[in-house]
């Protein structure tokens, strides 16, 4: 009996020890400075994390080829956050246990929010490469968080600015937006800013669609059924969906020529991969997002685009850019701080000029990167090699998108 108890006891311990997640994976080249990339590389938004990783790895390869940062090589440690806060916290704690203090990535805002308490308790740096919730730099501000992507306030603000400047003839804007709190809030913000800029402009019908809905034909009908006959001249569409929700409305709106019923479509939060997915089906729409590779004429951007083309045989998109820019932002700060201590890097990020392909930028006191937002027009074109083209683009300057 006693023997059996001993056996069971030791079996339990034997089980328990290897079952605990081991942090040893993170150990690599001696002396290398490790940067943790926590991003979604599986599931529906796997492309976000994968492209961010591509951009970050490219930047790291360039920096290492030029001698590293302060004589140290950089090394990326990739963790899958699975769009799941528990997985995010687990990944962050694993990095912390392995001595990694600098992290980046975070596809969703919930994951950035989940990372913050752990980062604050353990003095770690969270570089929000992809997450856009405004709360991260306002109500949930924490000094350990620096955003690389523009916030949703900045994106929506840029959309209103662009609508005002570029489409003065449009008298009414209608909305097709995701049906959750931010979807409603952003539309309200857009309407208010647009009315402030152009007092005569009206907001029309707002249709909010569940993000998970696949059959959206009823929502399409609800949006188009009340449009006046001349809507193709007088109405603009504020489209705030992304990914699968955009694919559904584009494809299911086609029979009734939904997008042809609007003088212009502005897609806040959408970007090139959606045009690539839909190809010739993609309507004429203006994306409002972080980056478009032809929109910036800096030398650094030219180098980035060429190197990215060479490495991955495709132009970089916003996520690739965000991965790349995050690494260069870190380098700017570490160079200035002459230290890899988190507090020193934080102080340097607050002060240092940040070199990115968009130009030399600065962090604001709320740790929002004062940066332009990119607006670019893409449309399906069956005769183009990629089945779509993006003929026009503009950068809405930082001071126009701040509020």
């Amino acid at each position: 009996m006693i023997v059996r108890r001993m056996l069971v006891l030791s079996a339990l311990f034997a089980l328990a020890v290897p079952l605990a997640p081991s942090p040893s994976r993170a150990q690599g080249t001696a002396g290398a400075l490790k940067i943790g990339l926590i991003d979604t590389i599986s599931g529906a938004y796997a492309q976000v994390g994968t492209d961010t990783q591509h951009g970050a790895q490219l930047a790291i390869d360039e920096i290492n080829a030029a001698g590293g940062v302060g004589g140290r090589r950089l090394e990326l440690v990739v963790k899958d956050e699975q769009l799941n806060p528990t997985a995010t916290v687990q990944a962050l704690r694993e990095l912390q246990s392995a001595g990694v203090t600098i992290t980046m990535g975070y596809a969703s805002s919930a994951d950035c929010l989940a990372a913050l308490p752990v980062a604050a308790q353990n003095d770690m740096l969270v570089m929000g490469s992809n997450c856009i919730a405004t709360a991260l730099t306002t109500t949930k501000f924490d000094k350990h968080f620096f955003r690389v992507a523009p916030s949703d306030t900045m994106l929506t603000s840029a959309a209103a600015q662009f609508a005002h400047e570029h489409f003065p003839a449009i008298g009414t804007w209608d909305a097709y937006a995701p049906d959750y709190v931010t979807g409603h809030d952003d539309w309200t913000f857009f309407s208010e800013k647009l009315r402030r800029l152009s007092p005569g402009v009206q907001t029309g019908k707002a249709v909010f669609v569940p993000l998970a809905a696949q059959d959206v034909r009823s929502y399409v009908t609800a949006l188009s059924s009340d449009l006046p006959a001349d809507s193709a001249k007088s109405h603009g569409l504020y489209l705030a969906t992304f990914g699968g929700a955009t694919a559904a409305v584009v494809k299911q709106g086609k029979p009734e020529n939904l997008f042809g019923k609007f003088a212009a479509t502005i897609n806040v939060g959408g970007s090139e991969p959606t045009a690539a997915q839909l190809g010739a089906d993609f309507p004429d729409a203006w994306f409002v997002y972080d980056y478009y590779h032809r929109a910036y004429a800096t030398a650094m951007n030219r180098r980035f685009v060429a190197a990215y083309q060479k490495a991955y045989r495709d132009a970089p998109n916003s996520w690739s850019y965000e991965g790349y820019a995050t690494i260069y932002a870190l380098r700017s700060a570490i160079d200035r701080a002459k230290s890899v201590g988190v507090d020193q890097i934080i102080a340097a990020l607050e002060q240092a000029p940040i070199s990115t392909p968009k130009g030399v930028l600065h962090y604001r006191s709320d740790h929002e990167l004062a940066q332009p937002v990119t607006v670019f027009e893409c449309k399906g074109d069956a005769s183009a090699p990629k089945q779509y083209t993006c003929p026009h683009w503009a950068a809405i300057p930082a001071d126009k998108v701040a509020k």
Partner: protein
Amino acid sequence: MHNVLLPFVGGLGQGVLLFLIASGLTLIYGVMRVLNFSHGGFFMLGAYFTYTLARGHVLPAPLLVAVVVAAGLLTALVGAITERGVFRRLYSLPEISSLLATFALLLVFEGLGRLVWGIAPLSQPQSPAFLGEMHLGPVTLPSYDVFLYVVGAGVVVGLEWLVEKTEFGRMVRATAADRQMAALLGIDVERIFLAMFSLGIFLAGLGGGLVSPLIGLTPELAVSFIIQAFAIVIVGGLGSVRGTLLAAIFFGLLNAYLVALRPELADFSLYIGMGLFLIFRPQGIMGRAGSPGELAA
């Protein structure tokens, strides 16, 4: 068009699509008593097979229809292999174990979809002929909806004929009623199971193929319709094709009218509708009351 009719047309189209997705689910349950969670996985395969066979090109309508049917058959082939490899082991298990097994299969298909078709979402374009509209008196119908009505009606009539009017259908009904007795009477139960499972999976694949021109393709499609499909077959009365059709149209119409009239409630329509309905009629539209479970409740 009148504003009262507009949601009716949209809701009907939505309902028929839901029916096509869910019909195979109820068919398989009716014969084999397996609640097949992996149905969504086969649905996803049907959509991707359509894309792969069409190579993502715009096809003329007849060719697209042929491709969708071929995708359904390919899916059925995968289904038949799965039946031989996995499902046969499940028929004797408790319902909850087979539910988990089919859920595990769903995850396997989702993972395979990711490996085969990559991380970027894909899109199968619609045929130009299906992008038009048809006018019937005061009603304007999207031509693809009309096509779906025809397919839906064909599926209902075809299944009814197969099960009610043919010799094969008699064997299926006998097997469904009492598989031991059917086997004793000389019916090859295993072959009936294989045939009906493949047929149910063919319908899943067909549904996926028919949906593919309407939505973007990601492996997560496997789960995106599955809860709706379950709700519909259970409200319809598990095992009843007609009940599934009625439930699908009911939920399609409910959603469409709520989107038009009370949009803030539309997102809840399926769950509230299902919950209320099942509280008052737990056996579903076409189900029979009086099971032992009810007597004890």
